[in-house]
């Protein structure tokens, strides 16, 4: 009797969850993603309601004009979570859970493409004209000559400064245009002395600024074969030297988190910033600073061959997955993000989404003066900057390289030897590469 009851207790414990599962509340698993086609619906994973989700919704409207039955199902998925999902689906080979289209950070593109080739569709011959995008941008999503992505927002880097702060120190935005980092250092120290405001800020332990400097000279942490070139990299050494000097002289304030970084310029505790053009959305949240901002290009590295005043940080591209209704997805992208001036004219003013699609730059909308930036037509300038940005060789281990360099920078600023810290970073990346 006792034994029977024991078995009964265990059986109930085991059966209950199963029974509950069978009793329902399971939604339709298995039909999440793209599909074989025919239903005129595309599923998209992307993450910013004010930016790329909005752009997708507008693209849906544009495409619906010729295809009234077409619908998009947009699943809001922050980038970090999207990467986790993509990794899980690709590694578990459950690729039929992928959507038709997803948005990919440009810096992560090569890594995902090389690690999970089964997850994406080659769209080279899909009718999309890739020559209408800057090569530096399509390079992110190209592997062995095949195209896998349609570039969306530009990560073109800008220098944005408070004109009132500059004026207080006797400068104008022109004094910060087409300059070198050593000129910037001198002027920024002068601004700091006269106004008490540093010109730049950034997250401690982040290598964003170094990466922008590297790309501005067409340099990278890897060679063409993907081998790390962190040790004995003269451009990297120069960039770290410049960065260390900026921090030590107080013209670049290091903060602990992204939120603190945003608050440095929204609160007006710094007089400027250097970042991807997408940062203008955050700048404009500071209503009280309207009319006091201006945008220009970046300082360039002194004495480095190939150095320019142009770079990029961030940016993203649309990817057609291997689970997609490929014909519909590519036709949709070809007629919207790679073919509709109307789309870019709508999304630029509302979302600040600067196009990579070159024909969009000719539109009048790009030439409109913005009151927040003292009447400057910043987007026309940014499109012009974008055409000058050198290509960036990211490779599979881009993020590992960045992390190792970030750690090295922290040590170097703390007083460690530059050469040996970079050798250590090189060894770390080589170890990660196996």
């Amino acid at each position, binding site marked *: *009797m*006792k034994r029977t*009851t*024991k078995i*009964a*207790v*265990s059986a109930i*414990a085991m059966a*209950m*969850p199963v029974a*509950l*599962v069978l009793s329902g*509340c*399971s*939604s*339709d*698993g*298995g039909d*999440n*993603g793209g599909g074989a086609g025919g239903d005129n619906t595309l599923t998209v994973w992307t*993450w*910013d*309601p*004010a*930016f790329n989700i909005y752009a997708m919704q507008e693209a849906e409207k544009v495409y619906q004009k010729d295809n009234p039955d077409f619908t998009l199902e947009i*699943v*809001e998925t*922050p*980038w*970090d*979570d999207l990467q*986790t*999902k993509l990794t*899980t*689906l690709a*590694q*578990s*080979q*459950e690729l039929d*859970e992928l959507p038709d289209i997803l948005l990919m950070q440009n810096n992560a593109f090569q890594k995902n493409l090389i690690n999970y080739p089964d997850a994406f569709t080659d769209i080279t011959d899909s009718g999309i004209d890739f020559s209408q995008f800057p090569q530096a941008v399509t390079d992110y999503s190209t592997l062995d000559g095949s195209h896998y992505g349609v570039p969306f927002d530009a990560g073109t880097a800008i220098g944005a400064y408070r004109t009132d702060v500059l004026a207080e120190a006797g400068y104008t935005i022109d004094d910060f245009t087409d300059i070198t980092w050593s000129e910037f250092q001198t002027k920024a120290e002068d601004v700091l002395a006269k106004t008490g405001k540093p010109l730049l800020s950034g997250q401690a332990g982040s290598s964003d600024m170094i990466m922008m400097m590297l790309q501005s000279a067409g340099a990278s942490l890897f060679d063409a074969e993907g081998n790390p070139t962190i040790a004995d990299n003269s451009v990297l050494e120069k960039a770290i030297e410049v960065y260390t000097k900026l921090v030590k002289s107080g013209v670049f304030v290091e903060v602990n988190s992204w*939120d603190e970084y*945003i*608050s440095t310029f*929204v*609160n007006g505790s710094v007089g400027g910033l250097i970042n991807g053009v*997408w*940062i203008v*959305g*955050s700048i404009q*949240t*500071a*209503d009280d600073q309207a009319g006091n901002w201006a945008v220009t290009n970046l300082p360039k590295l002194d004495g480095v061959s190939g150095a320019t005043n142009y770079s990029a940080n961030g940016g993203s591209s649309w990817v057609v997955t291997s689970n997609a209704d490929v014909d519909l997805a590519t036709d949709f992208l070809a007629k919207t993000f790679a073919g509709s001036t109307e789309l870019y004219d709508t999304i630029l003013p509302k979302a600040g989404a600067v196009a990579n699609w070159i024909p969009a730059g000719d539109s009048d909308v790009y030439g409109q003066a913005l009151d927040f930036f003292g009447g400057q037509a910043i987007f026309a300038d940014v499109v012009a900057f974008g055409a000058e940005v050198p290509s960036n060789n990211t490779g599979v281990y881009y993020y590992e390289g960045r992390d190792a360099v970030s750690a090295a920078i922290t040590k170097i600023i703390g007083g460690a030897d530059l050469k040996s810290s970079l050798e250590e970073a090189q060894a770390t990346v080589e170890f990660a590469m196996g």
Partner: protein
Amino acid sequence: MTKTSTLRAAPGYAFLGIWTLFSLFPLYFMVVGSTNTSQDVLGSRLIPGGAFFENLAKLFKAQDVGSALFSSFFIAVGTTVLALIVCSIAGYGFEVYHSKGKDRVMAVILLAMMIPFAATMIPLFQVFAKLGLVNSLWAVIIPAISTPLLILLFRQSSRAFPSEILEAARMDGLNELSIFARIYVPTMRATFAAAGVITFMTAWNNFLWPRVILIKNEVQTMPMLISNLSAGYVTDYGVLMLAVLIASLPAMVVFLVLQRAFADGIVGAIK
């Protein structure tokens, strides 16, 4: 208390008082932040503002809070109820019944605590995809209903359960199921409360697994909603603070209601 002993205790109270202020400050900032605009939050404004309703309207416009709250409640309550049933039976069984292999089985269960979730996520996803449970809230509940920690907690607490009661009940003719349901469960109320609080909070805050297995917008949970709010190029910090406040309230209420029983349960008291 005499005057001297009060004086002697004063530094201790002062220390605890300051410590309390430090601990409560983030909560205060969250509440105040939810009434301020994004720019005010970034400016670390410490007094309540007038943007609460504006933040509320923006939050409900941007995100489906109702469905996220439902999903979170469904998962948290479902996990808690099932985990308490399964783990209490397991813990009770491990302690009360005798078998040669039980300690070895317990050791294996405890070993499972050492495996990080990231290592099991991919095979787990394969299993649930094969079962057709992607996008089902049950896919979040099922892996959480039997945890080594809860089994251990119930087993440890069951040690204090007097074997005399068990024998007396058996002599009175109660079967094993009735002994468990009518004697053990009421006696171990404090342990159930402690285990309930731990499970509810873990389930409520669970992020990584739901984010992977729940793909559609309609089944997202509160932590996923908060993650969405801070994912864009521009974050509205007032709205974010409000969402965090809404997400924190249920866990706070559960903890405050069961606080006393929780403390008793953790130290293994039997009433």
